[in-house]
């Protein structure tokens, strides 16, 4: 075989093996979406990827069973709020830690970093009482505050700091010479220049909030305040038995838009991860 032919054969084998590895990643999505169209009885029948009868009303029932649209909206707006707040605070603090020489900065950094080692499970109980004391049980306030200020927020701060440290300093010096205040430099120079890092932090933060499960489980009790992860595990009949067809239809509804957004933005997402300090 000549070199080019050999290369082609190699390429084909290579692609095939990638495809095989991809199956367990891809199949659940296909199966989930297809099952979302099946009736409650068909799900348990002979498995097949294509539903025998397409049960479109699953997707109607999802919204009738519980205030799913409302819950969907809750998840979106909470995730947005968490993302915006996290970006704001983490970039502020990250900027200061990276760029400003102030007494105690190094110590503060260490101090904050210690949070990365503490799982949320550890502090959830006292936070529960804190939220009770603040009178914000069964509201979305804890779901916004805890991610922003908890370990995840610290992680975001750290990532932003890493990125700012690597940014050329001269632009900021130029801003200083131009008469910008610190806040001005941060807002007008540092932030516009750190789009990749902001994007990366925004993505992880959004996902983090979007997928949050323990906190809503603990802090939210009324249906209309549910977020998606809770709602998804809540398609049960009044006695607690799961309504699989609805659950899977709802799961598809929850996952597909995110996947589409991801597909559209995937190049930027990977780039921003690559360009930001996420790599450590």
């Amino acid at each position, binding site marked *: 075989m000549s070199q080019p032919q050999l290369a082609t054969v190699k390429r084909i084998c290579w692609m095939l093996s990638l495809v095989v590895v991809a199956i367990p990643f891809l199949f659940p999505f296909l199966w989930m979406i297809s099952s979302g169209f099946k009736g409650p009885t068909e799900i348990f029948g002979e498995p097949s990827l294509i539903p025998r009868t397409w049960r479109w009303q699953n997707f109607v029932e999802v919204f009738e069973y519980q205030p799913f649209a409302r819950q969907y909206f809750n998840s979106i707006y909470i995730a947005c709020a968490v993302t915006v707040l996290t970006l704001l605070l983490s970039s502020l603090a990250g900027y200061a830690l990276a760029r400003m020489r102030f007494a105690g900065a190094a110590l503060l950094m260490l101090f904050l970093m210690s949070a990365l080692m503490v799982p949320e499970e550890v502090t959830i109980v006292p936070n529960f009482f804190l939220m009770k004391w603040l009178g914000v049980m069964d509201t979305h306030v804890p779901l916004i505050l805890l991610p922003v200020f908890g370990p995840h927020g610290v992680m975001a701060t750290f990532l932003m700091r890493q990125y700012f440290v690597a940014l050329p300093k001269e632009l900021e010096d*130029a*801003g200083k*010479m131009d008469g*910008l205040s610190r806040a001005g430099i941060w807002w007008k*120079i540092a932030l516009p*220049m750190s789009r990749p890092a902001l994007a990366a932090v925004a993505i992880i933060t959004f996902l983090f909030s979007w997928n949050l499960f323990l906190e809503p489980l603990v802090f939210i009790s009324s249906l209309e305040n549910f977020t998606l992860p809770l709602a998804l595990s809540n398609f049960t009949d009044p006695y607690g038995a799961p309504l699989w067809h609805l659950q899977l239809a709802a799961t598809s509804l929850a996952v597909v838009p995110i996947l589409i957004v991801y597909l559209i933005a995937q190049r930027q997402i990977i780039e921003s991860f690559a360009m930001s300090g996420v790599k450590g």
Partner: protein
Amino acid sequence: MTRLTVRNLTKSFGKLEVIRGIDLDVADGEFVVFVGPSGCGKSTLLRMISGLETISGGELWIGDRKVNEVQAAKRGLAMVFQSYALYPHLTVRQNMGFGLKVRKESVDEIERRVNEAARTLQLDKLLDRYPRELSGGQRQRVAIGRAIVGDPQVFLFDEPLSNLDAELRVHMRAEIAALHRRLGNTTIYVTHDQIEAMTLADRIVVLRDGRIEQVGTPKELYARPDNVFVAQFIGSPKMNVCPVEAIRSPLQRAGFSTGGATQAGLRPEHLRIVDEAEGILCGRVSISEYTGGGSLLHVEIEGAPVFLVENSGDDTPQPGDIVHLAFSASDLHLFDAEGRACDREPELA
């Protein structure tokens, strides 16, 4: 009144003392260049003047205002950075107008001054481009434009040309010189390229390790360096320095007195290849580098380190050839054991 006065200025980063007491007076309109090897504190000193770096000790006066604790933007200076530091998300026009906008100048005024500066620098056609759409030289010019719109009393440049290629560097160097002649602002310019320093400066400040080694006009530094460091730093290729001991007998034979000097220096361009009769020093060519206009010879002289010799004649010696070198008394630099230049009576007299 844009004299600049520096008194015993010091700067420490933590325990590391980087600027160790600098005294300097820059006259109104003067073009002063800081040179020195990498890490000697040039940028730090400049940044202390600009206000970007705090001052650990000493005093800094701009005009008759002590500015130690004055914010950068309020010192009335403008700075051009090595990387140009153009805001990538703003157009050229916005970049140049940024400082004025921050200072809340009226839109008309900003427009007027940006246009004026753009005309001065021939940037008119580029005003609506983004920095990434500019060539290196154009960026450099925008960076200067941004500095001049603010009408600063003092210009600061930190290695503004080091990101350009050799050709462009020569060109922009001339432009900066022309600009200074036109505007006449007091200017402080940092570079590690001594050719740049020589060609631009009214006075050169040679820094080393946070201290000033010598201050003077380019000619003074070239002709009468205060010490070995300056002697070797100024001029290219650098001055050949060897222990007097190694060449004492040839020198004596030629009638040069060496006094108490322990080191002797000779610039490559001052060494002439001559006949054996006229020759003072004699050595073997180890390498001969053709440079077009001439060639650069590496000459091994017994007992001394390799001497570089610039030969502009067409009859280039080949490696292995024995050559004889001559120089005039005024081109011989003598230094004492500490590297300080020895007084040369012949010239003082």
